[in-house]
């Protein structure tokens, strides 16, 4: 790197930096999608509706509400008012519903604490209500419709999409680094003539490409990090840098940390393969 980069080295540096930026940005986007999907799934699983079957009348609702205060998994419970029911129905159907036209639904909205996947939430709540003298059923969010199962699919798509995209960027880095080996062909020929093995020659060129890749990957990763912060601040109005430091988890930074390493490996491998090929051509005539 002495004296700065010139010609092909500079072109290679910025090609690798772009590839690293694109791969890291894709990784950060995938992390963002993953976190939104996890949040959505948690919110979805943290909500249920209890339909009170007996006793009839307001006494049944009151008894159920009392029983729910000590029921497992339940963090809060509130009877669904006609106004709230009309608002939900209007949102679902797209038509304006008058609360006066909503019948007595005998429903209680329940917020749930996070529970293990093995927990029988409905069974535990029904049992707690029965212990309080209330017969009821629990309507949980359905598994296969209304967004059920969507979050895992989105998370998978984001993860594999980012991996695929990063792979494509690695191929670009691999191919770009071959240009460096072509540029160093005279060195390959000289080393071959002086008795360097294929591994020594290819290793010398690969080291150079890997160092350029490391710096370019660091620059690309840093640019992706800056872009990520800007996007977050635009997407979440009022967010401060202090708030971001608590919001961002260490695992969110994996794409940025992986960018220099991945770029160095891809560039080194590309240069090594090309230099090895040129060495073989120089070593054997005829």
């Amino acid at each position, binding site marked *: 790197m002495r004296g700065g980069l010139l010609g092909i080295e500079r072109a290679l540096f910025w090609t690798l930096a772009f590839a690293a930026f694109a791969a890291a940005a894709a990784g950060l986007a995938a992390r963002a999608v993953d976190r939104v999907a996890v949040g959505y799934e948690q919110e979805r699983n943290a909500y249920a509706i209890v339909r009170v079957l007996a006793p009839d009348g307001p006494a049944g609702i009151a008894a159920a509400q009392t029983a729910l205060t000590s029921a497992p998994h339940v963090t809060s419970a509130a009877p669904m008012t006609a106004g709230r029911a009309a608002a939900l129905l209007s949102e679902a159907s797209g038509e304006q519903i008058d609360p006066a036209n909503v019948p007595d639904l005998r429903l209680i909205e329940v917020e749930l604490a996070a529970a293990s996947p093995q927990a029988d939430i409905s069974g535990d709540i029904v049992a707690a209500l029965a212990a309080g003298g209330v017969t009821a059923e629990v309507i949980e969010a359905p598994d296969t419709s209304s967004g059920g199962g969507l979050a895992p699919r989105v998370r998978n798509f984001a993860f594999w999409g980012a991996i695929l995209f990063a792979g494509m960027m690695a191929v670009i880095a691999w191919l770009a680094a071959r240009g460096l080996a072509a540029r160093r062909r005279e060195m390959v020929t000289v080393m071959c003539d002086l008795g360097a093995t294929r591994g*020594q020659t290819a290793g010398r060129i690969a080291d150079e490409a890997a160092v350029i890749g490391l710096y370019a990957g660091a620059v690309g990763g840093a640019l992706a990090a800056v872009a990520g912060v800007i996007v977050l601040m635009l997407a979440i109005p009022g967010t401060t840098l202090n708030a971001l430091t608590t919001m961002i988890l260490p695992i969110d930074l994996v794409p940025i940390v992986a960018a220099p390493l991945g770029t160095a490996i891809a560039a080194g491998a590309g240069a090594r393969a090309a230099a090895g090929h040129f060495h073989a051509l120089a070593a054997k005539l005829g």
Partner: protein
Amino acid sequence: MARPRASIETDLFERGVLVRLSNVDAGYGASTVLMGVDFEARGGEVNLITGPAAAGKTTFTHLLRLALPPRSGRSVILGADVARARAREVAEVKRRIGYVAENPVFIEQWSTFDNVAMPLRMLGQKPREYSDDVRELVDFVGLGGAAELPVEKLSGAERRRAAIARALAAKPNLILADDPTAGMSPADGRRIVRLLSEMRRVGAGVVIASQDDTLSDVAPMWVWRIDRGRLSAPEQTEAADAEAYE
């Protein structure tokens, strides 16, 4: 310097036979350029391979520098049987050969000094270990004033001198020069050949391929004539310009 494994080839090497070719054919693709070549070079001797253009001189040097495998016959170079040698062994042998190509390849942006030092760097030597030797070698070939110049700035004759300095840097057992006087004045050409021939005094074998058979009187040497891929039996000559040589 790594010693070759104990074998008939090693025995030859230890008796001073650096190269022995026995009935060797070699060529490129479908064409066979060298046919039935028998050749021997010993340490401390100079061999001149001379013949017309396209006679096979360059192919012969490629054969000796292990860039071209023999198609048939036996080729033992610096104690290694070329046909049986593995890539690592071939590389080891190459490190003990100093090669001056007809059109030498350099790392053009590097200085003359750095290019000449390249074989020593490849052997793992540090600049403080080789600096004085390389400086002396660059002076020896008459490039003292151009040591720090990038090779791309050198003239054709200076490049050839730089190639000679690089070929001698690692103190090789065998020195090969392919048409080292091409494009030079007769006086410069003779000076170059004299320079290469000097290496016989330190025990190296020298093989020079050239169209110019008048070079045979520059130093005592074996002269081999090559024509259409066939090498004739050698003749021994004495140096006519012995005074200059001595």
